[in-house]
C-alpha cells in the first residue's frame, strides 16, 4: 500500500516536471507568448475582482486623452478605456477558450466515431468536413452570426460549428492508426466495448495531439470573434476588443482627430499581441509534439 502510494507520487512528480520541460523546449518567442498570455489572464482576473462595473459606467469627460486618472483615456461616453480593455481580455479569452474547447470535444467525438466505425459513418463525417473546409468560412460566419443574433453564446457556437473539422480529421487519423495496435485488439478480445475503448485507450492516446490542434483553434476563434464584432455582428453588451474597435471606427470624425491614438490603438495592439502570442505558442507546441511522436 505504502509502496504503491510512493510510486504514484513519484510518477506524478515526473509528470509535472515533464510539463515544465515542454516550456523549456520552447523558443524565445514561445516563452514570450506564454508570458503575454499569462499577463492577459492577469489583467482579466484583476478586472473581474477589482474593477467591478467601471467598464460600462462613465467616469470622466468624454474623449479625454490618456492621463494619470485614466491611463488609456476615455471613449465617447466617458468610460475609462483601461477598464474596458481589461474587461475585453476576459471576453476574448473566454470566447477563444470556450469555442476551441467545444470544437475540440465535438471534433474528437466525430473523429473517434468515424475512425472507429469506418464505413458510411466515416464517409459521412469526412464528407461534412470536406464541405466545411471548402465553404468560405467568413461569409458563412457572417450569415450565421446574423442568423443567431448578436450574443457571446451564439458567436461561440458559430465558431465552434465551423472549426471542428480540423481536430476531427487529426483525431480520426490517429484513431485509424491506433485501431490495429496490439493492445486494442487484446482488450477487444477480453470483451471491451466501444465506450471502454474510448475512455481507456483512445482518449488518452488522442489527447496530446488534440490539444495541439485545439490551441490553434483558440487563436482562430479569437480572430473570428474580433472580425465578427468589427463588422458590427458582435454582442454590443459584451465590450470585447472587437466591439470597442467597431464603436471607435464608427465614431464620426475619428480619422480627423487625435482620438484614434488611444481609442483605436489600445484594442488593436492588444488583439494583435494576443493573437500573435497564441500562435507562437501553438507553433512551438506543434514542433515539440512532432519531435516527440
Amino acid at each position, binding site marked *: 500500500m505504502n509502496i504503491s502510494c510512493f510510486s504514484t507520487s513519484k510518477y506524478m512528480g515526473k509528470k509535472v516536471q515533464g510539463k515544465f520541460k515542454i516550456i523549456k523546449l520552447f523558443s524565445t518567442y514561445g516563452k514570450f507568448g506564454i508570458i503575454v498570455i499569462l499577463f492577459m489572464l492577469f489583467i482579466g482576473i484583476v478586472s473581474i475582482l477589482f474593477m467591478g462595473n467601471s467598464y460600462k459606467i462613465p467616469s470622466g469627460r468624454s474623449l479625454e486623452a490618456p492621463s494619470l486618472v485614466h491611463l488609456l483615456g476615455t471613449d465617447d461616453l466617458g468610460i475609462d478605456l483601461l477598464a474596458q480593455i481589461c474587461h475585453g481580455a476576459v471576453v476574448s479569452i473566454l470566447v477563444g477558450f470556450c469555442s476551441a474547447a467545444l470544437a475540440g470535444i465535438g471534433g474528437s467525438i466525430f473523429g473517434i466515431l468515424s475512425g472507429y466505425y469506418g464505413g458510411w459513418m466515416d464517409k459521412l463525417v469526412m464528407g461534412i468536413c470536406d464541405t466545411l473546409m*471548402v465553404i468560405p468560412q467568413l461569409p458563412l460566419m457572417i*450569415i450565421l452570426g446574423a442568423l443567431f443574433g448578436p450574443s457571446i453564446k451564439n458567436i461561440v457556437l458559430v465558431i465552434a460549428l465551423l472549426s471542428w473539422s480540423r481536430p476531427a480529421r487529426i483525431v480520426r487519423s490517429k484513431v485509424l492508426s491506433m485501431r490495429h495496435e496490439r493492445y486494442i485488439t487484446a482488450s477487444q478480445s477480453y470483451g471491451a466495448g466501444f465506450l471502454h475503448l474510448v475512455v481507456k485507450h483512445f482518449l488518452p492516446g488522442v489527447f496530446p495531439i488534440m490539444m495541439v490542434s485545439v490551441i490553434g483553434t483558440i487563436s482562430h476563434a479569437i480572430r473570428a470573434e474580433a472580425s465578427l464584432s468589427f463588422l*458590427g455582428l458582435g454582442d454590443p453588451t459584451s465590450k470585447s476588443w472587437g466591439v470597442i474597435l467597431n464603436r471607435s471606427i464608427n465614431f464620426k470624425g475619428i480619422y480627423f482627430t487625435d482620438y484614434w491614438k488611444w481609442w483605436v490603438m489600445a484594442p*488593436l495592439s492588444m488583439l494583435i499581441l494576443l493573437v500573435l502570442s497564441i500562435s507562437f505558442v501553438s507553433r512551438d507546441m506543434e514542433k515539440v509534439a512532432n519531435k516527440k511522436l
Partner: protein
Amino acid sequence: MKKHYFLILFIIIAINFFLPRAMPGDPFLYISVEEGGVATTFSQNQIEQYKAYYGLDKPLYIQFFNYIRKLLRGDLGYSIYYDTSVSKMILIRMPWTIFIVVCSLFLSSIFGTIIGAISAYVREKCADKLMYIFMIVFSEIPSFLLGLLLLFVFAAKLKCFPLSGGITAFASYDTVWSYWYDILHHAALPIITLTLAGLGNYYLLSRNSMLSVLSKDYINTARAKGLKKGRILFKHALRNSLPPIIARMFMSLGNLFGGAVLVENVFAYPGVGKLMSEAVRTRDYVLIQGIFLVVALMMLLMNCLADIVYKKLDPRII
C-alpha cells in the same frame, strides 16, 4: 472526384437557400421603418401581396424548387432593399474585389516565393532568422487589424493615401492615365494589406520546398559545374519547387476572399465584401444569398482548378 464537387455544390445551394429564411428580423420591418424618415407602414393586405409577389407565401419545398430553377437560368432575383437585380449589383461590385484580390495574390506569391528562396539559400544565418520571424508575425496578424493600422498611420496621420472609397467621387479626368492613377491610389492600401497578410504563407511554403530541393544531388552537380549563385537558385532550384506554390495560389483564394471582405470594410472599398455587410445590415435575403452563392461557387471552382493544375504540374501525384 467530380461527384464530390457536385455534392458540395448542392450542399452550398441548400445552405444558401435555407439559412436566410431562418434569420430573425423581417425585410418588411426594414423597408417600412427607415432611420429618421417617415415611417411608411404597410397594411396586412399589402404585406400579403408583396409576399405573394416574391413567392414567400408558398411552402418551402416549392420555393426551393423554384430557386434552383431560377439559378439554372442565371437569375439571382431582385434585391428586396435596393430594388435592383442582384446579379447586376454583384457584377458591378465584383471587378473591384477581383482587382484587389488578384493584385495581392500575384504580389504576395511572387515576393513571398523570392524571399523564401533567398531565405532558404542563406539558411541558419542571421538574415534567414530575421526574415522568418518577420514573415511569421505578418502572416499571423489578422488582415483587417493590419489594414486598420495602415489606414490610421498612412491615410489619417501621414495623409499619403485616401481614407476610403475606390475612386474620387465626382472627379473628371483629363487622361486615361490620371483615371487609372486615381484607382490605383485608392486601391494601394487594401492591396498592400492583403499582400502583407498573404506573404508569410508563400514564404514558408517556398522556404520549405527550396530546402528540400537544395539538398538534392543535381544542385550539387550545378555547384560543381561552377554555376553562379543566382542561376542555381532561380533556374535550377526554384523551378522545381514551384508546383506546391502554384497549387497554393489557387487554394488560398478562399482565405483571400474572406480577408478581402473585412479589408474592404476597413477601407470602405466598394467591393463585394462591403456589399455583403450592407446586405446583412438591411436583412436583404436575396442579396445575401446571391453574394454567398457567387463567392462559394468561385471558391469551389478555384479548388477544383487547384486539383487539376497540381496534377498537371506534378505527375507523381495520383
